[in-house]
């Protein structure tokens, strides 16, 4: 059984069709990379997968549990709120702009949801939060507030915050796009080490060589459709489709 299955996803914003019949699956332990020009719909696809955006039609299934399916009139039907909340425990999201809670310390950012959503004890949550921060190289920043951190550090806190909820799959929405170039490396290496631990991830990114190294499967999107997909070496090193070639040639130089 796949961890995530999305099939025939369609989404319009008013007159603009942003997703046209998108289907994909993510298996446990795999890393899916989604690349494509801006406006290609890749971020929207991610936001649909985590229910921040509603699809117009199509199906989304996590571990066999249907979150969305097509109704009789062809419009998407969402599972009841309670069910959706349950399903949403399967995934976490790392935002492009971190969206840390500025009034909480780094430690509280990471441990608050495990305490107040999962019902962990404070000691237990603090302990695992510290372990995660240590893994991110931020244990000495536990008492700091987000504004005191660099962008790269903030993004690492937000990764720790998402991991603290023990998601089965972690989504990344252009996790390095808001960072200074010299700070992207620290985030990419964190994601690499997560991949080495067989964390299931879906990553929307502009970092081509990173996508090639870390992903098991690459999807190239343009104009709301999947233009090309396959093994990373194949899609990135020897693309077959002209649009993929054009897009990638802009990154080569």
């Amino acid at each position, binding site marked *: 059984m796949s961890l995530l299955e999305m099939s025939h996803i369609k989404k319009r914003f008013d007159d603009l069709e942003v997703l046209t019949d998108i289907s994909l699956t993510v298996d446990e332990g795999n890393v899916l990379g989604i690349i494509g020009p801006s406006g290609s719909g890749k971020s929207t696809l991610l936001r649909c997968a985590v229910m*921040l955006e509603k699809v117009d039609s199509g199906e989304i299934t996590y571990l066999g549990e249907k979150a969305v399916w097509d109704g009789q009139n062809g419009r998407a039907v969402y599972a009841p709120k309670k069910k959706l*909340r349950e399903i949403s425990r399967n995934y976490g999201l790392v*935002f492009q702009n971190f*969206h840390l809670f500025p*009034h909480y310390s780094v430690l509280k950012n990471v441990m608050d949801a495990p305490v*107040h*959503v999962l019902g962990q004890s404070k000691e237990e949550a603090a302990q695992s939060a510290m372990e995660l921060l240590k893994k991110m190289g931020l244990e000495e920043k536990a008492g700091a*507030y987000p*504004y005191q951190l660099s962008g790269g550090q903030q993004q690492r806190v937000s990764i720790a915050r998402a991991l603290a909820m023990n998601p089965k799959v972690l989504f990344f929405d252009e996790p390095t796009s808001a960072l200074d170039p010299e700070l992207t490396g620290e985030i990419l290496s964190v994601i690499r080490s997560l991949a080495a631990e067989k964390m299931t991830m879906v990553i929307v990114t502009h970092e081509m060589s990173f996508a090639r190294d870390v992903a098991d499967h690459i999807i190239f999107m343009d104009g709301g459709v999947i233009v090309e997909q396959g093994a990373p070496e194949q899609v990135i090193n020897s693309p077959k489709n002209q649009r993929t070639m054009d897009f990638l040639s802009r990154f080569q130089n």
Partner: protein
Amino acid sequence: MKSFSLLISQLGAGMAATVKIFFLTLVFSLPLGLLLSFGRMSKNFFVRNLSKLYISIMRGTPLMLQLVVVYFGPYFLFNMQISSAYRFPAVVIAFVLNYAAYFAEIYRSGIESMPAGQYEAAKLLGYSRTQTFLKIILPQVIKRILPPVTNEAITLVKDTSLSFAISYVEMFTAAKALATSWTSMMPYLGAGVFYYIFNLLIAGIMGFAEKKLNYYR
């Protein structure tokens, strides 16, 4: 000298009334304003527009007129007998109804200025809507709206003087009575000093609160 101590004691009594109006108004209008701001931002057409109309009337008509309506309304509308004991409740009711409208708009500006990302991050972490509002949104909103709330609080101190319109004796009414019987400016000057010191105190306390909340940005 004797007249000076009389002035202090008379104005002091008026001051106590002013302080009472001030605190009771804040205690009731701050929560009521929050509720009203929810109504103003509601997706429900009727709730939203009713709240909008209420705010528009409360902000668009003089507080003195509202005071008179609240005080004399029960008599003229329902033919109820009003006693002088109703003066104080009437003052507080009118002030609460009026200030809630202003506070509602301040809350709304604060809530609407919150970036959508805070809601989205909270949703992805599984916080309920109530948790999201109470733990994530409201604390940040309070920090943002502290300066305009300070403004309103200071205006409120001075607005308490409007109570003279229904002859409720707070500081200004007391000063006016003394000034008339003494044919002197002194009582007004004294009242002015009292108002000023009170507001200095409020500005100081709110400034302290702002500083306290400066631990994050």
